[in-house]
């Protein structure tokens, strides 16, 4: 039988039951490979459930550092009988199946073209442990031990990880090491080790860090100066608020008094969450909320208020599959339009698109600067794929000389000196007016904030000219935003390219890989990664300079394309959508297939041209 052979380039998928303690064992597996200097990108594929339903952990091991989901599985660690049939089907021909052979299975339950490695895990556990919980937990460690032998993973690295994790807890450390060795020794005695798939020590991890996007975003909020956070639990953003709590407890306690330089409220709902964030920002503190699509829907009235009353606020949207409750534990990029135009009336909002945890950190911190400078809501459009999976990325960076830009805030001294204060007065021609914090001056600078229309001095006014004057200034402000949001990044092809491709956010790793594969097939593509909305002219120029441009996104309705066509003078007929929206992260294989098909069709020279 064919046996897949690969060194540092294969996919292992763990099929487990959720609530069985498999998550930490599986992450241990991924980390051990990282410690050997080999890049990995793991993904949790989990149900909206706490115990008993199927959950998967897919690890792509890739020497070149491609982090997108590859598609296909080379080694399936099948620990869940519920999903056996589907799991078996996913294995590539010549791939491997590792399973618990304690109970015999009929031959019909296997495939002829898959190499089977059966290990009586339950039997071993029952013989070794008497406590039912231990039997379950150590079963996970035992299979990691066995895999370390099968794949030639350095067991020393795993033991080192244990000793870091269980520092000072000697009993736990020893019992984990014992379980690990039990599995490893069994495999070495009973199986051909290594199998065809092997991990070989490398140096391709470098100084990269391994962190999930939600933690990185939370850290960005800490560095960006957020002091108030209000949130309501919702997958996949809850772990962001929880990470913010954790980092604040470590980094934001006044050493002298032991008191907190932050305030975090788990609110009663998303409406209150954004209300609190808006109230705090109105009063001069940097505040944010983290949520997902359903939360955005609930927040829209308040978002309109913040837009129209011009109050800074940062909203982190960790997108999931919509609409409605949709796919709570799957990923999509499907909130672009609902965020860009959130709320009734004429509104538009600033959006930022991080590609990975490193950019989550960077753009989260930048979001607070933009919100203060522009006095408007700013959305960080993360998603479940980036947010809830640990990803290898560049180290997080901060420049200590960086000072917070609190935007146009009139001070006591300026008011005292008699500077004219009109809350909605465009002094500098950039559409951004000065604001004051409550309590600044005894007799000057107070104003009334409202969602109703007003004149330049914040006086209630329903007259047409006052209204038009105000909303035209808001448009000027949006023009100013173009100069401040991060610019798109160009990835030029090595050879002259007829095709362009636009992509954003979590599509990035799959796209980078797809571009390389396509180039290998002679399809050269200039690519542009959009990082913010409103769109700069560079994007329209990019489209204008290519006959066809693919717009790659993870939603059904081509939301970025819609936004591009709506907001720029781009010729829509040049744009070809590549859309992936089944809730799984987009893969390089998918992009390559789609683009190759379209490109093939468009490379054929039309008959008319041949004739003429």
């Amino acid at each position: 039988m064919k046996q897949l052979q690969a060194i540092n380039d294969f996919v292992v998928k763990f099929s487990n039951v959720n609530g069985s303690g498999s998550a930490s064992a599986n992450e241990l597996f991924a980390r051990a490979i990282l410690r050997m200097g080999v890049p990995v990108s793991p993904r949790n594929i989990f149900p909206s459930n706490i115990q008993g339903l199927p959950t998967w952990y897919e690890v792509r091991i890739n020497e070149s550092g491609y982090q997108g989901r590859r598609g296909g599985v080379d080694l399936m660690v099948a620990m869940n009988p519920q999903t056996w049939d589907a799991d078996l089907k996913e294995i590539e021909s010549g791939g491997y199946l590792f399973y618990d052979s304690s109970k015999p299975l009929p031959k019909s339950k296997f495939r002829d073209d898959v190499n089977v490695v059966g290990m009586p895990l339950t039997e071993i556990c029952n013989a070794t442990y008497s406590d039912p919980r231990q039997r379950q937990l150590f079963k996970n460690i035992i299979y990691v031990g066995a895999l370390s032998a099968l794949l030639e993973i350095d067991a020393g690295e795993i033991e080192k990880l244990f000793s870091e994790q269980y520092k000072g807890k000697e009993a736990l450390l020893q019992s984990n090491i014992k379980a690990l060795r039990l599995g490893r020794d069994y495999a070495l005695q009973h199986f051909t080790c290594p199998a065809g798939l092997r991990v070989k020590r490398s140096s391709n991890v470098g100084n990269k860090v391994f962190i999930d996007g939600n933690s990185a975003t939370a850290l960005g909020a800490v560095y960006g100066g957020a002091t108030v956070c209000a949130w309501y639990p919702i997958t996949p953003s809850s772990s962001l608020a929880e990470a913010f709590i954790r980092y604040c407890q470590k980094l934001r306690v006044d050493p002298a008094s032991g008191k907190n330089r932050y305030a975090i409220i788990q609110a009663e709902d998303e409406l209150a969450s954004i209300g609190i964030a808006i109230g705090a920002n109105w009063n001069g503190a940097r505040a944010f909320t983290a949520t997902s699509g359903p939360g955005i829907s609930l927040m829209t009235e308040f978002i309109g208020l913040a837009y129209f009353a011009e109050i800074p606020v940062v909203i982190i949207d960790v997108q999931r599959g919509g609409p409605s409750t949709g796919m709570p534990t799957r990923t999509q990029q499907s909130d672009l339009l609902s965020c860009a135009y959130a709320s009734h009336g004429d509104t538009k909002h600033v959006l930022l698109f991080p590609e990975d945890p490193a950019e989550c950190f960077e753009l989260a911190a930048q979001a607070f600067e933009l919100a203060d400078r522009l006095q408007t809501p700013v959305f960080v459009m993360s998603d479940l794929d980036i947010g809830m999976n640990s990803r290898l990325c560049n180290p997080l960076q901060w420049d200590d000389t960086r000072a917070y830009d609190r935007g146009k805030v009139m001070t006591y001294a300026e008011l005292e000196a008699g500077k004219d204060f009109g809350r909605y007065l465009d002094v500098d021609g950039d559409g951004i007016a000065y604001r004051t914090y409550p309590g600044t001056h005894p007799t000057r600078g107070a104003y009334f904030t409202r969602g109703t229309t007003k004149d330049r001095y914040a006086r209630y006014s329903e007259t047409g000219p006052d209204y038009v004057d105000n909303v035209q200034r808001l448009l000027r402000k949006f023009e100013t935003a173009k100069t401040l949001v991060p610019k798109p990044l160009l990835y030029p092809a090595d050879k002259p390219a007829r095709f362009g491709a636009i992509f954003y956010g979590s599509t990035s790793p799959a796209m980078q890989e797809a571009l390389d594969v396509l180039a290998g097939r002679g399809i050269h593509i200039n690519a542009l990664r959009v990082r913010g909305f409103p769109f700069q002219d560079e994007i329209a120029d990019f489209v204008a300079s290519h006959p066809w441009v693919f717009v790659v996104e993870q939603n059904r309705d081509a939301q970025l394309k819609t936004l591009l066509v709506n907001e720029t003078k781009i010729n829509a007929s040049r744009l070809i959508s590549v859309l992936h929206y089944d809730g799984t992260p987009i893969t390089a294989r998918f992009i390559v297939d789609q683009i190759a098909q379209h490109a093939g069709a468009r490379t054929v020279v039309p008959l008319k041209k041949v004739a003429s």
Partner: protein
Amino acid sequence: MTYLAKPRLHHPTLAKNKVGYTRRDYEGKISTLCAGCGHDSISAAIVQACWELNIEPHRVAKLSGIGCSSKTPDYFLGNSHGFNSVHGRMPSVLTGANLANRDLIYMGVSGDGDSASIGLGQFAHCMRRGVNMVYIVENNGVYGLTKGQFSATADKGSKSKRGVVNTEEPIDMIGLALLLGATFVARSFSGDKRQLVPLIEAAIEHRGAAFIDVISPCVAFNNHPGSTRSYDYVREHNEAVNRLDVITGREEITADYAPGEVTEITQHDGSVLRLRKLASDYDATDHVKVMHYLQQRAAAGEVVTGLLYLDPNAADLHSYLNTVDTPLNQLTERELCPRAVTLDRINASLR
């Protein structure tokens, strides 16, 4: 309402308070509400209370939702920042504002539609969180701005101006506030300034969530026979359990009562509340008895007013969250931003 602008020049003999302001300095824009609206009396009571307490107007932030009552912050304290937010959501906006700067005084003004219907949830959670604020509901039992629909506090069996009888149970804001953990609960009547002003003063001095339900008749839509929120009805059924004097550390403010049984309660900030009992055995610090008494009197058709409940040792949200004494909005990157060296350490732990 009137279209005449208020004179900017004040009479030179107008009395000034200890911080140098006349009462006029606490006024706002001219009210656009109907002549005789109870809400304007409440605005006047807020002006009086802030003047008497020697509060600098700019140290107050006034927030509201949507509705007639929520328009009123424009009509008092013209030198304070005001925020007319969205319908029913004043509590959350105020909570955020309060977190950003613990040093200001927060006055939340709302109505019965704003707080008992669309905003019931936010009202509830703001009370149980113990946000340090004065929460005034200007309660008229009717939607005024949309012309006379019943609100959720309208009594069952009461009649609207168009003659419709309300068949739904009323929401008891006082009862809710007590259940939800408000640490200062009072009810008053916009037509009784002598009772209302000291209650607002005591609420301002209180640390924690202070709730005042003020029955405030709507002259346009709910002041007719058959209404239980009309001036006549409330005057007839008003049963005050006590009269209140507020004594700040500085001076006694009002003391024009006939002698009765007097209890003094010292609040957290040192201010003394002198309660003259009108109902025998009424102990405003006994949570369980207060709830029992109020249910009893409500069943008898009385509108009980006065300082109904007080926890003099209440704590507030900032103490629960253990926030620093410096307002969060005054912290800079120096206090807030961990340095690059810390980030390097974090990076190292992520390998």
